[in-house]
């Protein structure tokens, strides 16, 4: 006799309890604190902030802890919180020329005003596992340069002086920056929305797409004009005051890719740009973003669209890892109603074929008999 399965509620509660247990792990060890995550796993925190599009280091660290270190789960947690926050307005565009630079490198000039500044980079470390990190050894204080006080000019401005690079795009006077999370997405997209989508897009996906452009799938001859990491001031116009008010400083990574361009009947040859701007320190993401941004400008620049990275609908519709993970993972939800329908169909089609076959076989026998 059969009694229908019940008790989904109890099962869910028990699953949550077990999850909490696994998250805590061995109780004899101290649990990791939010401050420790903020301070010692800073790049994980940065990635969660970037892809959740919410700049809050403590909340991002909480999400990392709650997600047991699963980055996409952490991003998801932070996004689901972000969505409930009220929106006061848009800030003034950040001025990255006024950045308090911690790292600044250019691949296009050997030396330039403001100099090359390596900053806290993995680039020239040898990737040898470091046993000293097994214990809590003393770490030396960093060497600090006395800040000169003057702004570090952007490489794009150097090229712009000669008119060799396209200017920052112009929007019509009444253009309001779109908000991907507040308005329905529609294609084709304006570049501001596209950059928003890329800025919160999955690092791995953009990395792979950027890489594909380098391997010939939508090649755009990139040079790293400049990468800079540091703090910028965020300001907001307050209508009642009539001027912009500083809200605080955030750390961002900016990449300006300089790309070749042939020129057209209207425009003389000049370099074009791909742009990447990401919360926190995430050079890989900013670089990949700028490669993909440039690839997605194919139509605007009259280039043939032949590669995945140039296909706006393809890239933007699939770069969001929270959407992607939800839909891929929803396959584990029950589908037995649909499956039942397919099961019935396959059985029916197989029995149709079996019937036709046995008919044919008895027909063969008959003709054989007739021949005998």
């Amino acid at each position, binding site marked *: 006799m059969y009694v229908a399965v019940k008790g989904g509620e109890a099962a869910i509660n028990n699953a949550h309890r077990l999850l909490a247990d696994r998250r805590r792990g061995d109780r004899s060890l101290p649990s990791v604190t939010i401050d420790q995550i903020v301070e010692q796993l800073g790049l994980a925190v940065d990635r969660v902030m970037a892809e959740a599009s919410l700049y809050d280091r403590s909340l991002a660290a909480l999400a990392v802890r709650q997600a047991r270190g699963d980055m996409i789960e952490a991003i998801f947690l932070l996004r689901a919180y972000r969505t409930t926050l009220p929106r006061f307005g848009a800030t003034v565009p950040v001025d990255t020329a006024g950045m308090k630079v911690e790292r600044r490198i250019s691949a296009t000039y050997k030396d330039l005003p403001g100099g090359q500044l390596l900053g806290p980079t993995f680039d020239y470390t040898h990737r040898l596992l470091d046993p000293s990190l097994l214990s809590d050894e003393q770490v030396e204080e960093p060497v600090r340069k006395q800040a000169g006080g003057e702004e570090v000019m952007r490489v794009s401005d150097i090229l712009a002086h000669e008119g060799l690079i396209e200017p920052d795009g112009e929007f019509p006077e009444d253009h309001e920056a779109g908000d991907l999370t507040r308005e329905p997405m529609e294609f084709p997209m304006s570049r501001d929305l596209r950059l928003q989508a890329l800025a919160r897009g999955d690092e791995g996906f953009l990395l792979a797409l950027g890489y594909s452009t380098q391997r010939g799938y939508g090649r755009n001859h990139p040079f790293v004009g400049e990468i800079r990491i540091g703090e910028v001031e965020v300001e907001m116009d307050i209508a009642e005051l009539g001027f912009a008010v500083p809200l605080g400083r955030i750390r961002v990574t900016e990449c300006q890719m300089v790309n070749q361009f042939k020129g057209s009947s209207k425009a003389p040859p000049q370099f074009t740009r791909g742009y990447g701007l990401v919360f926190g320190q995430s050079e890989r993401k900013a670089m990949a973003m700028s490669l993909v941004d440039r690839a997605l400008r194919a139509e605007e620049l009259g280039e043939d669209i032949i590669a995945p990275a140039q296909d706006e609908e393809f890239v933007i519709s699939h770069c969001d890892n929270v959407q992607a993970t939800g839909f891929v993972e929803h396959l584990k939800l029950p589908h*037995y109603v649909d499956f039942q*329908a397919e099961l019935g169909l396959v059985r029916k089609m197989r029995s149709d074929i079996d019937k036709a076959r046995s008919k044919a076989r008895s027909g063969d026998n008959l003709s054989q008999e007739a021949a005998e």
Partner: protein
Amino acid sequence: MTDLATYNFAYLDEQTKRMIRRAILKAIAIPGYQVPFASREMPMPYGWGTGGVQVTAAILGPDDVLKVIDQGADDTTNAVSIRAFFQKVANVAVTTHTRDATIIQTRHRIPEEKLTEGQVLVYQVPIPEPLRFLEPRETETRKMHALEEYGLMHVKLYEDIARNGHIATTYAYPVKVAGRYVMDPSPTPKFDNPKMHMSEALQLFGAGREKRIYAVPPHTEVVSLDFEDYPFEIQKFEQPCALCGAHDVYLDEVVLDDKGGRMFVCSDTDHCEDRRDHGHAGAMLAPKKEAAE
């Protein structure tokens, strides 16, 4: 960070609800048309009913009675989880009885019991675009809808018949709504398609990840696409429900052992229980006392 978890009634803020309600009104005004809306990030994964949950959250009032089903059942884990979500964030009355509910959120089924005036059926939709697998481009499919170019849809059905001798689409079977828009009924089995036609209830469809809302208002014509000489047919089961003996309902197959033993039971658990309470019994129903032990 301590007062972090204060949420509005039914989770969404009122501005967002208004935005969703506007989309719903537009959808009702143009039956079957997919209205883009600014879908929010929800505290559950995309593909798990975020569209349905947003629609429900936008129309839910304190006096509503909510029923949530997945695969026809009230007790599948995702249905339990969504129901618990609304109990938590809206403290709303819930039920498993189809006829007591004012709002029914569903994934993959329409209840067997006929819905009545005043009820709202909210579908969770994974891919709202019926033309998506024939034409992947949004810009192109929107144009096809606008110009009512649906020849391609029939090309697919033609291919089905040419290959299999009959139309081999068993779920998410495309329909034409009010003689105008071709619509995806969400992955319900085609068995349920006739229930959409001239339904007294309002049917709302929410696709969160794809950011679309569409609707079938009450008393609206919903016709499943077919050919004159290959008319639309629904699945038929060879045996009644093994628990309640119902015919003409959609059945789930339950595998009993590894020797090919199986039974078929109602996918709509509320309908099945209700019938059993009224004395109907199928071939494998345990006598009442034993089951209670």
